[in-house]
């Protein structure tokens, strides 16, 4: 990665922002997931209204060598519709919880998108040619009278305006009683897992009428329920290994070769509690909201309410690194519990091995460089929207005298939260979602 680990700090510049400008946010436009595909050429977002919008990066312009291609809308489609469960008298939200891309095998692109209950495999394909010169049909599709056909010709493909079509190829339904929080594609590219609050299922991409239940933590007596599954992911290289995190701050690594039902973990990652920091909120803030493997698979990162932790898969008893995202909130936990912000689920992402990124409040997001141990806070705001202007680092003043340009904790806007971020798999391009806008930042190219 250019700039990473080489002692050169990345200088982030604003590149683009997508979405409505108004402060009045339509609920359906709230972005609920962001994901680059494996090449980074495509960037998908899902929203609360059940729609998926895919952006495509322009091919690099040779004359504009100082910036990478811009992302423009490539395809928009309605992935999930609201449904009604008549048995329980409950509405099933159409909000897209996660999108995961499949690696590209042919001309078409495939992605999995899921709401609370149903996962769908979408095929996105391009059509830029159409056949013309049929013998039996007119150009507009009407059939010709066969008796008027006097000569025969071979239909040919002629170019047409590019059309991008999205079609649902598989629908994986009726396998989850509880709300799906994660999907993860296996490194075999044939199977994937879906996790809800209490169970994890294994699917084959070709088979929709059955799935295997591989984890079940539902107690026989629901009265005894004290812990739920919060996230799950397959190991990037070992197709038999996956991890899942819990609301009690633990991560379990499971090996599917050990047993059909992976209720017994192979490894349990848990950091002992710090007694000096104990409060009634300790458990809530220890709940893990996201877990992500590094590209190599040697490390995994977890996000809880106040911190990001890096774990070495070979060491279960504590993380190798802990980064504080917004420690100044520790003294505000009661208010954050009152207004429910303490239950916000922040995601996190890697740039590979060296730098991790996660969101915070006030439209701030944070990056931690594992090598230099430096961190930076940046803001996603339309005020900094000049391309190629380097973003100014932000600082929150926890207590005491507020310096110029610092913002005090009490001035933070807790309605402006960055829950979803994504890092391009190959370049220093990041996508950061505020409530209803998608920001794209790039590193400064000289």
């Amino acid at each position, binding site marked *: 990665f250019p700039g990473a680990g080489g002692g050169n700090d990345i200088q982030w510049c604003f590149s683009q922002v997508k979405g409505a400008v108004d402060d009045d946010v339509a609920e359906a436009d709230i972005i609920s997931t962001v994901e680059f595909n494996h090449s980074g050429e495509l960037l998908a977002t899902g929203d609360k209204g059940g729609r998926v919008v895919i952006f495509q990066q322009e091919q690099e312009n040779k004359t504009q060598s100082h910036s990478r291609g811009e992302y423009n809308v490539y395809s928009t489609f309605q992935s999930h519709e609201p449904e009604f469960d008549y048995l329980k*008298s*409950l509405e099933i939200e159409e909000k897209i919880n996660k999108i995961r891309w499949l690696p590209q095998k042919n001309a078409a692109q495939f992605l999995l998108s899921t709401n609370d209950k149903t996962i769908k495999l979408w095929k996105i394909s391009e059509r830029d040619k159409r056949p013309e010169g049929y013998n039996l049909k007119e150009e507009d599709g009407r059939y010709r009278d066969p008796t008027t056909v006097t000569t025969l010709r071979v239909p040919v493909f002629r170019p047409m305006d590019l059309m991008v079509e999205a079609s649902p190829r598989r629908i994986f339904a009726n396998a989850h009683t509880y709300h799906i929080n994660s999907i993860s594609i296996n490194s075999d590219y044939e199977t994937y897992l879906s996790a809800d609050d209490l169970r994890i299922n294994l699917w084959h991409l070709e088979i929709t009428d059955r799935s295997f239940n591989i984890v079940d933590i539902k107690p026989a007596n*629901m009265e005894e329920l004290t812990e739920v599954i919060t996230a799950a992911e397959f190991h990037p290289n070992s197709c038999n290994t996956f991890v899942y995190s819990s609301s009690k701050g633990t991560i379990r690594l499971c090996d599917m070769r050990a047993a059909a039902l992976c209720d017994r973990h192979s490894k349990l990652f848990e950091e002992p509690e710090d007694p000096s920091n104990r409060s009634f909120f300790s458990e809530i803030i220890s709940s893990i909201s996201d877990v992500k493997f590094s590209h190599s698979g040697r490390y995994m990162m977890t996000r809880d309410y106040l911190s990001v932790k890096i774990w070495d898969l070979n060491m279960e008893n504590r993380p190798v690194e802990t980064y504080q995202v917004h420690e100044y909130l520790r003294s505000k936990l009661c208010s954050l519990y009152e207004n429910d912000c303490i239950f916000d689920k922040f995601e996190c992402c890697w740039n590979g091995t060296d730098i991790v990124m996660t969101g915070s409040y006030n439209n701030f997001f944070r990056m931690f460089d594992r090598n230099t141990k430096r961190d930076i806070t940046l803001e996603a705001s339309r005020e900094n929207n000049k391309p190629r202007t380097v973003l100014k680092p932000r600082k929150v003043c926890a207590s005491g005298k507020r310096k110029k340009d610092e913002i005090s904790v009490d001035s933070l806007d807790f309605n402006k939260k960055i829950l979803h971020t994504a890092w391009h798999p190959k370049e220093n391009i990041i996508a950061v979602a505020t409530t209803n806008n998608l920001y794209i930042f790039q590193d400064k190219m000289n």
Partner: protein
Amino acid sequence: MFVRGLKRKCFDGEEDIEGTLAGIKAIPSYNLQRQSLLDMSLVKLQLCHMLVEPNLCRSVLIANTVRQIQEEMTQDGTWQMINTQSTGQASLDRLISTDILCRSSREQAEGKHVPGYGTFNKDFEGDQAQDSSETMSTASSVQGPRNLQSNVWEMENPQENKGTFQKSLDQIFETLENKSPNSVEDLFSEVDNSYYDLDTMLTGMMSNTKMGHCDGLETFSSTTTTASNSNCKSDLNELDHIVEILVES
């Protein structure tokens, strides 16, 4: 040294308390905070009951917090104190809320049938009060005579109450499983008007309803973010929508 005449909110006269005057001042404030946290958590759980699709993770975390508080309060003896105290509407409301949780989950477990459409009008006072009282009485007659195992006003045995509370907490998740709007009906039928006020305050719908004694809860409702208020409102809109569907069919 314990200073005579100094009122301590949650402790009996016999409780021995060490420490300086500062210590004495600190302890009631901690208890107050803890109590307000407990109240807040119970309110959140009740709202969970009223929401169409409760978030299981959030419910579990809140319930665990309530258990923690309850354990600590049991250990230092304040839990018993609260139950035997009869001062103030605030404690009674707390008792009501826990008993309502007991009642609703108990009845949920018994699987009583209540017509679904009756539930949705109960939140609104004024012009809809008539409808709600009609539907509530209809609902009650369908259910038959209720067999309340404990009268909410009689707090004979604090120990039993503790047990009931624990049980009700445990049963919350059963109700989450059997989630239906019926539980809302169960929560609020056969209560007197003062509880009606508590209910409307909880839903944040009636901003002019004042509960002077429930300062902690009031603060909660007034500082609730627009997000959760709109959740209530949008949920009620959804409920209206559902009512339409059911009434049409």
